């Protein structure tokens, strides 16, 4: 399953990481190198093995429904690159 530059481009787009056109091919090589190496997993017989999602052998704890937080706007906005009137301000979203 070798990655071509178009796929790398698509992945970069999905990950919202800009990659210069000239860097696509070397990046594809790097990623293929790693993916080729991980493909040794195909050797493992995983029939009947459930995919692990957590090593903690527990179930979800549930929180009591109570308002214990919020109303901390200053703390929420403290590190904002841009804010106005209590809002985060971001580049215009085009619908």
């Amino acid at each position, binding site marked *: 399953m070798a990655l071509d530059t178009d796929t790398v481009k698509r992945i970069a787009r999905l990950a919202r990481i*800009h990659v210069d056109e000239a860097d696509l091919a070397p990046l594809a090589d790097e990623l293929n190198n790693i993916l080729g190496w*991980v493909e040794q*997993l195909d050797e*493992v017989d995983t029939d009947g093995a459930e995919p692990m999602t*957590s090593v903690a052998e527990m179930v979800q704890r549930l929180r009591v429904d109570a308002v214990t937080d919020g109303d901390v706007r200053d703390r929420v906005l403290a590190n904002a*690159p841009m804010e106005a009137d209590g809002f985060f301000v971001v580049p215009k979203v085009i619908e």
Partner: protein
Amino acid sequence: MAALTDLTIAQAGAGLDKGEFTARELTDAYLTAMEAARSLNAYIEETPERAQTMADASDARRAAGNAAGALDGIPLAIKDLFCTEGALSTAGSHILDGFRPTYESTVTQNLWDSGAVMLGKVNMDEFAMGSANITSHYGPTLNPWKASSGDNAGKDLVPGGSSGGSAAAVAARIAAGATGTDTGGSIRQPGAFCGIVGLKPTYGRCSRWGVIAFASSLDQAGPLARTVEDSALMLEAMASFDPKDSTSVDLPVPSYAAALTGDIRGLRVGVPAEYRMDGTPPEIEALWQKGVDWLRDAGAEIVDISLPHTKYALPAYYIVAPAEASSNLARYDGMRFGLRVDGEDLTETYERTRAEGFGHEVKRRVMIGTYVLSAGYYDAYYLKAQRVRTRIADDFRAAWDSCDVVLTPTTPSSAFTLGEKQDDPIAMYLNDIFTVPASMAGLPAISVPAGLSDVGLPLGLHLIAPAFGEETLLRAAGVLESAAGFTAQP
């Protein structure tokens, strides 16, 4: 009397209790040492004023007879992955430029509640992705050790990673102990490279709340310290059940230091055949054998065991961890905190911010993670890796029938030079070949400095225990430590 900075946490605590020196004096000694050792680039941000204020408060508590415990007045370094209120918390990344959290991680809060003193935030591989502390936006941290002979004699060496700043600081006596985090070996491998003890607790033992996430199902905080006893003291303070972390386990925290009885008679020590890998240097094999002998001499029973999926742990890790990271790192988008690089429009702002904000290794892993989760590849990569992970956990489960701890080397080599393995990610990943299986199974594991390599660099031995078997793990580690009698210093 030895320099204050040479004291272990336990010794320093005793000195404070006896009034031989104050926490302020101890802290000032560290602050002075930190200044002198800045060339190591261990600290991203030093917090001397905070340290002195905390030290004074500690002295006041002690004077009033209210000392909080073994860590009261002990100066510590905090890995930059922990969010610390008002202090820079960047995960070693450009994308968190200037980020000062308005909150304190549970683990660091636990430490402060125990009276510990914060010296500053220490360097690390960016977002904990690396094994050499060379991916930090703040530049590499140097290992205080240098080879005494061989081709690399005198050259700058890496401290290991990702908790490289933590390990270097503790080894260089510019922190009495440090917090680290371990996702695939990030506490144990730098611990081994710097000749100190690195302990990764059971997944769920230390809260992840306020720790910047790399791979949520693997990340675990733990201590780096100069002795097993210090590690026990630190873990006892760091660990807690935290309702704010759904994966935190609701079990009481035992007195880990009390577990260091030195008595391992009858303890069954498993030696896994699959860890004898081709290309492992003879000095590593030899040290491993020494470890076996030391434990046997102390009364342990040595058992040959098999962990058949060992070799697949690393490739499976390099699917699972990047997959989780690709999602965990999506919040670094330039919208609410950290770096924003303006583009022509929103999408370009995202793409420029993340392209400039993340370093190469982080981008590579985010891309891999995005790919293995994407439509059409999820089953072949991600699900497959998670099934392999189940097999790895099953291997250990089976092993616990015949042994109580597992002994292996920590790393396949001693510290390497800055610049080595930089261009070969897989060569770099192989650093964690011995540490990753325990991470994948969520098990507690510890690296203990056990000897010097042919060129005079520290090497570690690695013990793994069943989940929540920290007491057994520490007891065995303590015996290993005594037998090895490792006293060398950088």
